[in-house]
């Protein structure tokens, strides 16, 4: 993985494209063949995602974060190749990101964590502030933004945030990390209609069959046995 700020996030994506395409089950057959035949040669860079709400800086952070939280391996492609960054962008742009079902009357004093979320910020605003603080932390610690760090550095930085050891302004880095992890896992495991879990990669990884989930006979047939039918999503029934 590149560590060179001059190459940066976009350059990294191009370089990583081959490996990702080889793993990504939805990649066109041609790209798969090409990647398999010449693994070192990069296919055309994937088109940049069209973000609904994330800025380029935020998108680069989210893609790098979800790829560190869900790294590519023989189980699934990386978080961003599974669409998790797209999922996060859509969630933050939508009703939930803008405070639906969130009581927002003040005052908003400092509160014990057992009282739950007590900030005046919508989830969209909270992620903007969190990403800004996370990048400020890695600039101070490593001299560069989070998405430009090496993979071991990214892991180290996320662990520091998880443990609350990264200095954030206002809220703790743990609070931001937990929200980021929660949203990442939602994107990885939710039905693919939301943009993440592409090709049901996460469901295949664990053996969750998705829809239609009508097991009146199967519960007897598969008692103590592995369920062997491939998963299906909401889109398959729509």
């Amino acid at each position, binding site marked *: 993985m590149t560590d060179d700020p001059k190459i940066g996030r976009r350059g990294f994506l191009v370089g990583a494209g081959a490996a990702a395409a080889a793993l990504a089950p939805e990649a066109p057959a041609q790209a798969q063949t090409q990647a398999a035949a010449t693994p070192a040669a990069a296919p055309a860079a994937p088109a940049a995602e069209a973000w609904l709400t994330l800025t380029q800086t935020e998108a680069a952070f989210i893609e790098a974060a979800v790829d560190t939280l869900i790294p590519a391996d023989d189980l699934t492609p990386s978080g961003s190749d599974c669409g998790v960054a797209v999922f996060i962008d859509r969630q933050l742009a939508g009703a939930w990101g803008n405070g639906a079902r969130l009581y927002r009357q003040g005052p908003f004093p400092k509160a014990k964590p057992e*009282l739950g979320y007590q900030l005046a910020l919508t989830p969209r605003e909270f992620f903007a502030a969190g990403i800004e603080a996370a990048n400020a932390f890695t600039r101070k610690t490593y001299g560069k933004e989070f998405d430009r760090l090496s993979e071991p550095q990214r892991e180290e930085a996320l662990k520091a945030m998880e443990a609350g050891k990264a200095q954030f302004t206002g809220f703790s880095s743990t609070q931001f990390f937990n929200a980021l992890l929660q949203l990442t896992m*939602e994107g990885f495991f939710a039905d693919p209609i939301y943009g993440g879990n592409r090709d049901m990669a996460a469901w295949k990884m664990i053996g969750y069959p998705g829809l239609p989930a009508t097991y009146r006979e199967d519960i007897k047939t598969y008692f103590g046995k592995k369920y062997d039918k491939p998963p299906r999503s909401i889109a398959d029934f729509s």
Partner: protein
Amino acid sequence: MATMLKETDAVVIGVGWTGSILARELTKAGLKVVGLERGPGRAPHDDFTIPRVRDDLKYAVRQELFQDTQLETVSLRHSPGETALPIRRWGSFLPGTGVGGAGAHWNGLTWRLLPSDHNLRSHVTQRYGRNAIPAEMTIEDFPVSYDELEPYYDKFEKLCGISGKAGNLRGQKIDGGNVFEGPRQNEYPNKPLFQSLAGALFEKGAKSLGYHPFPGPAANASEPYVNPEGVTIGACVYCGHCERFGCEANAKASPHSCILPVLTADPNFELRTYAHVKELVYDKQAKKVKAVRYVDPRSGEEFEQPAGLVILGAYVFNNVLLMLTAGIGEPYDPSTGKGAVGKNYCYQVSGNSVTVFFEDKEINPFMATGAHGTFIDDFNGDNFDHGGLGFFGGAWIQAGTSNGRPILTRPVPPGTPRWGREWKKATAKWYNHAFNVGASCCNYAHRENFLDLDPTYKDALGRPLIRMTYNFRENDYKVSQYIGGVLERLATSMNPTIKTGANTRRGNYNVVPYQSTHNTGGTITGADPKASVVNRYLQAWDADNLFVMGASVFPQNASYNPTGLVGALAYWSAEAITKRYLKNPGPLVHA
């Protein structure tokens, strides 16, 4: 100004389980009944269908079917000296809204209380002595005994088509059922659900320890069923989408699947959705609620609906809110112990569990129902000797699976990181090989756990939020600790590849992780008008035409999920209204 409407015989506030039952019984008795529901009407054939109903993100995580906290929530502080803050997003409990209420999205465990739960204070005093109950533990007797309520439990079980197995039929103990339950006149209307592998492993382990496992009483119909209302309930398909979801198979008992088809066809009943009840119009002199004021959120218009009889069937918090804002009864004061409205708020001490992992067993957690457990009651209520233990009460304990929906359910062994390569490997390896052994502990009333009006935060109608002063107390921590030991023994008895230690209740009550939607108390039933809000027929002591339904009437919370008792008390109260009150309106119990 509110538009004055024509008087009706009865108005029902909230069209969930209790509102539907009361409306049905009252219309059958010939009354004209108006049902006021703040939320939308829901049509299962449209709302709860494949594929949309299987959307884990929308329903389970983004909380589609629940009360919108943007409009109405409650605040919390852990003790009377603190400043309460609003619960800004639901976590530990999930109140419903819309037609069907929380009855649309529940799991379906439908219990009867133990006879000794009914007369709890007397029972504990008799067995353990007059000074056994600590002064701050304000537990009471239900003024209705198990034997009195038995036919009404039976009636609600038949309405729902509960799947289960009797363990005590007219006094005869039956192996394989719950031998600790009170005597039942009848077997359950449906046979038990198909047992999961997790349940079978638990059963074997529990038996090896000498305990008495039985299938949980489930409002998930094991077979198609026609209830006494003539409504057909479908057979459960074990989809693993009960709690937080509507039922696509029409197999989970709910107001929609059991009662609304006949109720809404009755010309004596008028359902008004988008009718957000704002306040009760109370005549203190006459001790009557004269009318109900509500707002239609589609227009902002306010209406006043006069009624001869008012049934308060909202959720616990709004029941208490409407009583307090109308000035019915005396608000509870924890410093003096006087007053009763808001008193004895209780919850459930949930989330006690051990996770067991079996390398060689395919659990298939996604083939499940909400109430799909195998249980033991050996450590529930006063089924075991509490002498010298330093606490009262206990827990039901169960194993099984309720779902395998992976946003929320994907156990990994202790020590696994929460993300990264090792987390992925562990998740892939163990997802289909693990389940929980869990316990739901009772929550006994405490002098300083109560509800009143928040001085700062308001809801969308401009009313104060209900303020919850609540924390777990010594009895709760001790019960949880003791039950944790039992859970560990049970886990060991199953000989799993890996097991976690017992997760028990420590620290403050936390509103973030889901625990249970078993909020109780605040308008408690009792024999003493000074120490309770409603009499044994759920009639308000201070307004004889007002009957209060639901778990807000519980003096304390047993370990059991509350809906069975809520349904039984609704039928019990409905009979008192139709057979006695209507003939001679006035107090059914003289103070």
